[in-house]
């Protein structure tokens, strides 16, 4: 393996890790936001949001890191993705703006209703646009000099609507897992019940997506249905096991495992699906190797960012640890003044 191939592999790894961390961390975060749309009790909604107060910003930061890593290490991927998916990306950004600001404004406002709606719809919009982006990535789009030059609606298809549904359900499922983790009593009970239904719906949507994927992407069809099927079959098997663990956790009402099982389900599906797209970054024209920056950049970024990765993960983990335990107040940060 020459140095450039190693560097490319390393940066695909870092981009993949940032994306995975973003999807699972902001995933539960957006999921809780989606669930606030169906909560009637203002006190419950307050507690749901309070459970996110110390982490939502840090969770979203993985998306920013992903953007920076792609821009530096794979500028052609960064450019092609964002230009080619202009509208869904803009929709995602608008949604994230809405939910982020509603999160803090609701806290300061006497009129909670408007910000509740903005927060819920923003969370839903972000999840759906991320699902649309996933569907568009699987289907790919024609490029000319890296650019998509037709009317701009290639990302909106029945298949991408299905992936949008799948991602939205999956995020909501992670949300119930998080709420079981963070709440007690009636709220936790309600999360157990919602989660069980969401699990069934997520698995159904996920299976449909997986079943249809080969017919929307010839490269993946060749991988999954040919002699190379074994590792992908293994990933699928792991996802099935993760789904069963989650089901068991919901039925047996184990506090930690609904969340951890869902995390495992997302991780295995993510690795299986994203791994299948390799070597393409934007199917069918742009590969990771073609899109990579010169070795000088990849090496310089490695020297700067690699030592920071464990530190970042450590202090992010520390912050989660400081705010561990159940949320028993709608005050952000856990209502310290009550002490």
């Amino acid at each position, binding site marked *: 393996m020459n140095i450039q191939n190693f560097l490319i592999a390393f940066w695909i790894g870092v981009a993949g890790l940032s994306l995975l961390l973003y999807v699972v961390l902001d995933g539960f975060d957006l999921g809780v936001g989606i669930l606030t749309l169906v909560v009637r009790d203002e006190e419950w909604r307050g507690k749901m949001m309070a459970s996110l*107060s*110390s982490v939502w910003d*840090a969770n*979203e*930061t993985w998306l*920013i*890191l992903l*953007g*920076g*890593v792609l*821009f*530096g*290490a794979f*500028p052609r991927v*960064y*450019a*092609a*993705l*964002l*230009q080619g998916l*202009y*509208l869904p*990306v*803009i929709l995602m*950004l*608008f949604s*994230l*703006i809405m939910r*982020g*600001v509603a*999160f*803090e*404004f609701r806290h*300061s406002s006497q009129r909670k209703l408007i910000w509740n709606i903005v927060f819920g719809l923003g969370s839903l919009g972000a999840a759906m646009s991320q699902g649309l982006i996933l569907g568009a990535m699987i289907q790919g789009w024609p490029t000319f000099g890296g650019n998509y030059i037709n009317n*701009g609606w290639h990302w909106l298809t029945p298949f991408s609507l299905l992936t949008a549904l799948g991602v939205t359900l999956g995020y909501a499922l992670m949300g119930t897992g998080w709420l079981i983790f963070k709440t007690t009593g009636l709220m936790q009970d309600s999360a157990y019940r919602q989660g069980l239904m969401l699990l069934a719906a997520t698995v159904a949507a996920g299976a449909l997506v997986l079943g249809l994927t080969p017919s929307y992407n010839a490269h993946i069809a060749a991988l999954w249905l040919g002699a190379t099927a074994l590792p992908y079959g293994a990933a699928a098997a792991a996802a099935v096991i993760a789904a069963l663990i989650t089901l068991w956790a919901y039925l047996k009402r184990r506090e930690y495992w609904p969340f951890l099982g869902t995390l495992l389900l997302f991780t295995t599906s993510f690795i299986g699906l994203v791994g299948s797209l390799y070597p393409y970054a934007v199917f069918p024209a742009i590969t990771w190797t073609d899109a990579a*920056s*010169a070795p*000088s*950049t990849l090496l310089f*970024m490695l020297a*700067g*960012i690699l030592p*920071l990765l464990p530190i*970042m993960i450590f*202090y992010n983990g*520390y*912050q989660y640890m*400081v*705010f*561990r*335990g*159940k*949320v*028993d107040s709608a005050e*952000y*940060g*856990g209502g*310290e003044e*009550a*002490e």
Partner: protein
Amino acid sequence: MSANAVVDLSRAQFAFTALFHILWPVLTIGLSFFLVILEALWLKTQDSDYYHHARFWSKLFVLNFTVGVVSGLPMEFEFGTNWAEFSRFAGSFFGAMLGFEGAMAFMLEAGFLGIMLFGWQRVPRFVHFLSTLMVASGASLSALWIVMANSWMQTPAGGTFMHDRFVVTDFWAAMLNPDMVWGVSHMWIASIEIGCFVVGGLSAWHILKNRSPDFFVKSFKIALMVAIVVTPLQIYLGDGSGRSVFHTQPSKNAAIEGHWHTNSDGHGAPWALIAWPDAAKAGNDWSVDLPYVLSLLDTHTMDGKVEGLSDIPAQNRPPALPLLFYAFRLMVAIGFYLFGIMLISWWHVHRKGWRAQNWQSSPWLLKAWIAGLPLAYIAMEMGWVVREVGRQPWIIYGVLRTSQGASVLPASSIGFSITGFALLYAVLAIGFFIFAGHWLRNGPDLSMKPPPVTSPSGRKGGRT
């Protein structure tokens, strides 16, 4: 719609989103350092006023920070959505800087923000202080990487320009490009100066209205002490930045000064105090000139040569000349205004001391501080107009034209995004002012009990 109109739409969107976004991080930087000072003073003196100050100002901090975060997120992606050709061309340097910003700055800030805002009762005082320090460091590091990347667009260095991309050969030369030290320091001090005049202006308002005046003299004092250092320093850095522009970006320098004709040997270039530059007739419609002053400003000699716009090909001259000319003058005038009220306040302290009643006896001075708050922001925005519009028609000065850097997009897509940003940002601004208004009217909660000195034991909601 023509390709140029599409480029102009992308420019309008970027200008709007960037000018809006930058309003917030400057206060995040300035206020986070103020919070570090307050917390250090509290830990050192055990005076609970400083604790109450920290809690009071951190409420403004979080409102401001949130708008900064949500309006900053699109910036990270707009280079790709609207400037895909620039991204492909410059990504191996410019993108790497954004990657460093994400990994070093935002992560640090976000990783400790929760503890800083909500962790008072959950972590020992020392850990909390450290978290505040990390948030402040993260915010400032973010400015370092971003302005460094922007400086490279002003004075590109450190690599080879191929026909379709830039390949970095020397990262240190690219990062330490000629504009970097001036650009970064001028912007960082601008952030501290804005933080200083937000704290100073709002404290002055409380003193003027006789709302907890003794309490607010404490924050006013810190603001004035900081102003004594930063207002003259910023004028020095502004002069340095201006001379850096003179050396590295002659077209920008000529445009902001309305300077058309290169002075001949032995003659000093005059400086137009006020004028109306007219691109069509390639001259000023009218002007009030001070002889020799432009040579003096740019070269620090009486007759140093200053290149005029007439010697720069028309297609390489910046657009919007009157805007550049007056934006620059407004920024400079405000810089001196802030310096001036610092001097007067210093003299006032010397004569009358720090007591609240003595400040209240000079309401005009407190009002001058209150006016300094919006003026400091206006100066900063004018500075960015000078920097970015003055760089035109280049996206990378002298290398890549802005029109070559833009994405190929349907005009309707940009029309949608620009409308959405305008509506959303109007909501953000209105919401911020409403809630900041509540915060200001409610004032500080002086009954709040500081956390115990020992490590907090009664952690709420811990696993029991």
